[in-house]
């Protein structure tokens, strides 16, 4: 099946991003995407990651042994024994964004349980980043909840919201407030399209809050599942007065996996900023010496 040719040594790399909702993988040969895959994350992230890696390899016509290095990222990275190194999704998104468009200065990513804003410098290094608080307002999970309450399929939220005819104020402070406001509106017979448009605006304002902390600098790149929602894209463009770049011809959810693959391809160089750095940093833990909190008291 696989090429198994020595000619691929040092040329094929893979990245795997195991997120809270979906697992993504990208395979690079000579810096070009030759395979990718996307699947829901199951109850065992370790298996989900391996399966999506296998799918991406199959799409590229490769086997695991053809790959010089695999980098894992996302929440599932902590249980990815099939990977060679792990890097956070923040760094992977930055790397992926710089790979796609070196002029990217700000990434907005709306994932399943996090939404994040990452500021980049001209070298593609992270200048600053901010993630949502514990509250899920502004994340994919929040949009899922809204679609359930409104009885609208997730993928229909965007197109439907573009038909709204009135602006409504919905709180972006807290998912619980927003939910209760939506239920109040439904109880009063408000139309779903107006409610959804208001929800998109609330999410956009939430993201604007994160952007405020990191700073607004073009070009913007919008990634994650949220970038597939046309209504949300429109709301963000309206709130930010800016246009976005998305990943050309690819699913915007792949950005983290792409960045992981790019980092894997650089992994042969042992310098700061490459996956090897984690080995340098890892030190045995120092035991708590005074153990103030751990000594039993007679």
């Amino acid at each position, binding site marked *: 099946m696989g090429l198994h040719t020595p000619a691929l040594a040092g040329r094929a790399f893979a990245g795997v991003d195991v997120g809270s909702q979906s697992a993504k993988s990208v395979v690079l040969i000579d810096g070009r995407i030759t395979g990718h895959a996307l699947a829901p994350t199951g109850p065992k992230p370790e298996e989900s990651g391996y399966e999506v890696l296998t799918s991406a390899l199959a799409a590229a016509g490769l086997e695991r042994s053809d790959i010089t290095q695999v980098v894992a990222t996302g929440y599932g990275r902590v249980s990815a024994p099939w990977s060679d190194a792990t890097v956070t999704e923040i760094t992977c998104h930055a790397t992926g964004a710089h790979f796609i468009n070196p002029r990217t200065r700000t990434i907005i990513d709306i994932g399943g349980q996090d939404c994040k804003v990452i500021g980049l410098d001209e070298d593609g290094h992270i200048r600053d980043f901010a993630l949502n*608080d514990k*509250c899920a307002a502004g994340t994919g999970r929040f949009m899922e909840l809204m679609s359930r309450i409104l009885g609208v399929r997730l993928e229909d939220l965007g197109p439907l919201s573009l038909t709204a005819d*009135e*602006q*409504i*104020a*919905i*709180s*972006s*402070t*807290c998912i*619980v*407030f927003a939910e*209760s*406001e939506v*239920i*109040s*509106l439904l*109880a*009063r017979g408000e139309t779903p399209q107006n409610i959804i448009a208001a929800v998109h605006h609330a999410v956009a*304002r939430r993201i*604007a*809050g994160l952007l*405020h902390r990191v700073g607004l600098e073009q070009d913007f790149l919008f990634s994650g599942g949220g970038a597939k929602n046309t209504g949300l894209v429109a709301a963000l463009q309206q709130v930010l007065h800016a246009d976005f770049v998305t990943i050309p011809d690819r699913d915007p959810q792949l950005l983290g996996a792409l960045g992981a693959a790019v980092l894997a391809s650089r992994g042969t160089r042992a310098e700061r900023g490459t996956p090897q750095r984690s080995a340098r940093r890892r030190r045995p833990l120092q035991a708590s010496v005074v153990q103030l909190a751990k000594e039993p008291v007679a």
Partner: protein
Amino acid sequence: MPLTTPDRVFRLPEHVKPRLDASGPIVFSDRVVSTDEIWRFLTEEAPLRFPYAFDLSGNNIARISEDVEFVSGLKAAYLTLSLYDRIEAARAAGRPIVMIQGGQHFEPYFAAGAVPLRPAYIYVWARNANEGLGLRGSDVIGNDHLEAGRRRISVDACHQVGAHGILHEGVLRVDFVAPNLALRCSDMAYLTESHRSGTHGAELLLVDYPIGDAVDKPWAYQYVADNLRRLVTTIDARTGRRTTDDDLRAEIARHNRLRRLAREFQDAWQAAPIPPTNSIDRQNISLLGNEPSLDPTAVISVLDSAITEVKARAASGVRGHGLAADPVRLFVCGSCVTADPNVVDGAGGVVVGKDDGWSETVTDAAEDGDPYLGLATQTLSWPYEQGSQARAVWTAEQTRRTRSDGLLFIYQWGCNFQSAVARLIADSVKAETGLPTAYLSSSELGKSESLEQHRTRVEAFVEMLRARKGVL
């Protein structure tokens, strides 16, 4: 008479006009506003400029009272709806605008010729700069300001952060952010500080409130007095005038009169066997006792007519419009928010009192001696600003005084200082009076889209009180 139109928009019926005329004009400190002008404003100008205020939807917490026969309520509405024009006129006349805190005193600002505006009035000012807003448009603008403030400062801040957001975003400019801190709110000090890195250039100053029991601490009174003196000299430095102790004493006398009238109104209202007005009118008139609305003289004029009206109603046994035949009497305490009066009335209750807003009117300031020390002494005696044990004792007294059937402690999102003692006060009042008490948090009161949860909780409590009284 109830006033209901198919589209639920408030309109004044012609037959009310003679009543309004009979109650007399509103006397402002610099002019007299005739009843013809009040009528014209409320029936022609204001409905066009501020349609949201005339929306009678059930979800409009700030809707105008439908008790059109109670013409003092109309006058109070006139004060609120004319606020924007009066702020702009004061600004054009060169009076410094000062953002202060709700529930503090006003005398030093007026004495120094400034215009003190609490956060709610900053909101009104910013909203009414936009004409033609419906309820929903008003909500959208209010929400934008709220979220601007939260974005800049924190989502954990209470909703007064919106007023600070208005300043931060440059929507409006004030000359000073100079509140008294009092012992009601822990956000205000931090929110005032937040303006130091703002770009709007307002001068910042805090009049501190010494935390802990001030009785037997002459230095605590002196500290507040010194802070107040610094406030006045700071405003004077901006205006170039010199505010004398006599100026301040005169202002204290004017506000003492205002407070006395508010107490007289409350006493007359409470003495009536049948509640003589609905909850919203009682609340709006009572609040005037500590909300001079840019012109204490005008407020005195409105309170005068309200007292006359409420006494007449009490004597003839008139029941407030929209109240049940035998409403249960609810006392509300907690943060600077209250139970939606329309919800309470609709469920068969009536709000007979609220600690915040009332606490500031129960004591007068000395009209002789050092006026700064007089104000400090008065402020430090306000029951709402005492330690929670003392405050609970006072709150229990108020429930007796108002013949309340139950007590609700309500705190709003972000108000961690009041929420901290919700159980303490509710439990203490219950132990002291045997009344049913409850405490609940409200999320975004004042925004019409989030009322359902609040409504359910308040209605359930009122239903419980009714069942207990055997009137359900």
